[in-house]
């Protein structure tokens, strides 16, 4: 055992590169799953199917960027889905019932998302609450507010102008997907290239040591919670634009999938490691597998089983590779 692992380390094999760089590993998995899907289904690579996957990935992808940023800090926000839903519904009411121009409604809804995220962050930092437990509570409040506002009925008559943001294409690429890519680029710049990003990783690693270095830990937590609320609101808005109606069910699937995607992509729930890019790769893997299930006409009831199994497989692989690394002494 030890002789061939050290040999592998001296002349890095493909396997050891994959295992050493978690991002390379999840990217390789994405490529393999993509290629396998293209091989087993003739419909997979069609332009229409690709745009379906990209459009679907856009919404959950935005929430994934938000959640993975919080996870790097060592926090979780289970209310991101209902923030998205609530902001979507409120934007619908502003546009349809209040008759505001859609541009104004978008700004107000994004502002509401920031406010709701800020409230979560404020309660976490000011009272020292555990974010996971707190946001189970606030998810209930925000989700309840959706039902109070809509009485469970979708708001129809969303203006045509905004629908381009959800349904449109630019050069054949769905607009929401492009928006998600822009947000991803900004998030990557922030996390990898700015002091703010370094502070996020530092806090996720060791919050006490971060304070000792003079990092304003609470301020950064608040900022990221606020930013995460805004991105969830953006996802909700784009979903409203896509559907042409503000459905009270928007956001219901954005709670666990982004966490699963982030974990697959190498972001630890304990904080301090990973990147939003890995999380988006993880979301891509889930999206492709869900797509294949549909293409094969498998009952959608099986989707939960399959995506759950992927998470279990991914984290098992991660744990095994880490054990391999430890034995290597790296």
């Amino acid at each position, binding site marked *: 055992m030890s002789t061939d692992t050290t040999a592998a380390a001296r002349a890095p094999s493909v396997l050891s590169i994959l295992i050493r760089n978690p991002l390379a590993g999840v990217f390789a998995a994405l490529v393999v799953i993509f290629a396998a899907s293209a091989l087993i289904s003739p419909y997979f690579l069609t332009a229409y199917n690709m745009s379906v996957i990209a459009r679907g990935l856009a919404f959950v992808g935005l929430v994934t960027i938000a959640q993975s940023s919080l996870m790097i800090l060592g926090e979780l926000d289970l209310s991101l889905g209902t923030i998205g839903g609530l902001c979507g519904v409120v934007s619908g009411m502003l546009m349809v019932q209040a008759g505001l121009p859609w541009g104004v409604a978008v700004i107000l809804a994004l502002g509401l998302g920031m406010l709701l995220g800020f409230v979560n962050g404020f309660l976490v930092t000011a009272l020292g609450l555990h974010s996971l437990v707190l946001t189970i509570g606030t998810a209930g409040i925000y989700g309840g507010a959706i039902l109070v506002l809509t009485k469970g009925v979708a708001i129809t008559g969303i203006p045509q102008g905004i629908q381009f943001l959800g349904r449109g294409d630019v050069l054949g690429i769905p607009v929401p997907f492009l928006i998600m890519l822009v947000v991803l680029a900004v998030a990557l710049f922030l996390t990898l290239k700015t002091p703010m990003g370094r502070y996020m990783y530092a806090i996720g690693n060791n919050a006490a040591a971060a304070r000792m270095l*003079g990092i304003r830990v609470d301020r950064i937590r608040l900022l990221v919670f606020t930013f995460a609320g805004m991105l969830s609101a953006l996802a909700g808005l784009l979903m409203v634009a896509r559907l042409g109606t503000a459905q009270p069910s928007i956001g219901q699937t954005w709670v666990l999938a982004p966490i699963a995607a982030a974990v697959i992509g190498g972001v630890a729930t304990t904080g301090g490691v990973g990147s939003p890019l890995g999380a988006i790769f993880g979301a891509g893997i889930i999206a492709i597998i869900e797509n294949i299930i549909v293409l094969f006409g498998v009952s959608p009831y099986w989707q939960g089983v399959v995506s759950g199994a992927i998470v279990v497989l991914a984290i098992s692989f991660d744990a095994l590779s880490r054990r391999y690394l430890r034995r290597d002494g790296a």
Partner: protein
Amino acid sequence: MAYLEARGLGRDFPGVTALDEIDLSIELGRTHILAGENGAGKSTLVKILTGSDRATRGSIAIDGHDPLEQPDLFRNIAYVPQELSLFADVSVAENLFMPFDRTGHGGIVNRRRMEAEAQNYLDRFGIDAKPSDLVRHISVPDQQLLQIARASTNQDMKVLILDEPTSALTAREVQRVFKIIRGFLDRDHAIVFISHKMEEVFEIGDDYTVLRNGKKVDAGRVAEIDEPALIRAMSGREVAIDEHFRSNRPVTDRIMTVENLSGHMFDNISFDLKRGEILGFAGLVGAGRSELMQTIFGFRKATAGRVQVEEQDWRLNDTAASVAGGMLYLSEERKHHGIFPLLSLRENIGLSVLSLTSGAAGIDFGKERGLVRRVIEDYDIKAAGPGQRISNLSGGNQQKAIIGRAMATTPRILIFDEPTKGIDIRTKAEIYRIMKELAEDGVGIILISSEMTELRRCASRILTMHGGRITGDFDAASSDTETLVGAIFATGSGADAAPRNDAEAHHVH
């Protein structure tokens, strides 16, 4: 015949040989000192001896048999790590018998019987606690002894490996631990004692083995070697242990004034820090020194009083303002307050120079690499490369990275809290030299230390604390150790005065 024997052990990691050609023999009834600087390979060796890592080459024998063929033999080797590894919110008795596979009660834990059995161990190890006490509420030396007691609940245990068991203890507590270790040692047991501290080596050791850079450089009977020879073996060069590191700059104006400051664990503290001096703080563990400094730094809340720096009021309760204003605190808790374990050495050091390396286009990675490389070179940090995870470095190298990181900024006031805890002699001297140079550059330096030698070698003035109050202010050059120790134990100055005897006073030198 030796009970535990290693022949030609070697351990390779990618790109590094951590151990090479190690021979070791541990005899029952004796205390074997394992000495060596940080990164000498002591931890790797201990991991192999306890079965948690495997050698690349060579063999070990326990009681004449190969433990790789009979893994049960590893149960005869017990290891007590340097860091406390107890469950703080669980009772003393439960900690002792965790995971309850040695108590012989079948699958059910019988609290009464367990606590009765625990009492035997507490008596034997002289631990001042009730079996039902939570570990959180017992003293640090008692916790240290509890760890040793826990290892000895293993009936098969023959060899007990203690990894720097005294690093968190004061001289008086060390004596207590030593007494118990000596009582524990009999013809059926052996102790392997890992230590940097010379006085301990000569006090408790029978045999010794010195490692340097992964190789065995010397071994023999402690009675046949003297201190300079042992230090030479460990460091590979002559180190003047009596050298002084006091600042030669004339002490001038006040840089910081603390007035009537109160907070958790200390009360109504006033003192001045002058430019160019190293101000020592002596006291027992729990005297309130760390709490005081963390409050001045803003990490803890002050309840009353004020601090002025260069005649300006200092903002309390705000570490970010302190760092921005040029005050840094280097904690003794490297693991909890110092390193970011999952980040690389580069990122760990880079964190404090972000203001220099980042602009409108974000962090300039090239510039960062350059600055970090300089810190690594200046502070002689040994690592496979700047990309290596900091948690994979040895304790001494982590400490050098933390100090180097702090120096990369331009501090006005630096507070060192036990900066040489768990650090080898050569690195210690380097740290002293850094403190001296900084003081001579006009930085105000506070040094908290439990080692009287260290304070007397570095500090120009020593304040003693006891029970959260300052009990004395001494000129380091003109006061003797006896007086200082008296002030630390607050003898003759109140009802809580602790008795002091000559043996202890003698030990603190």
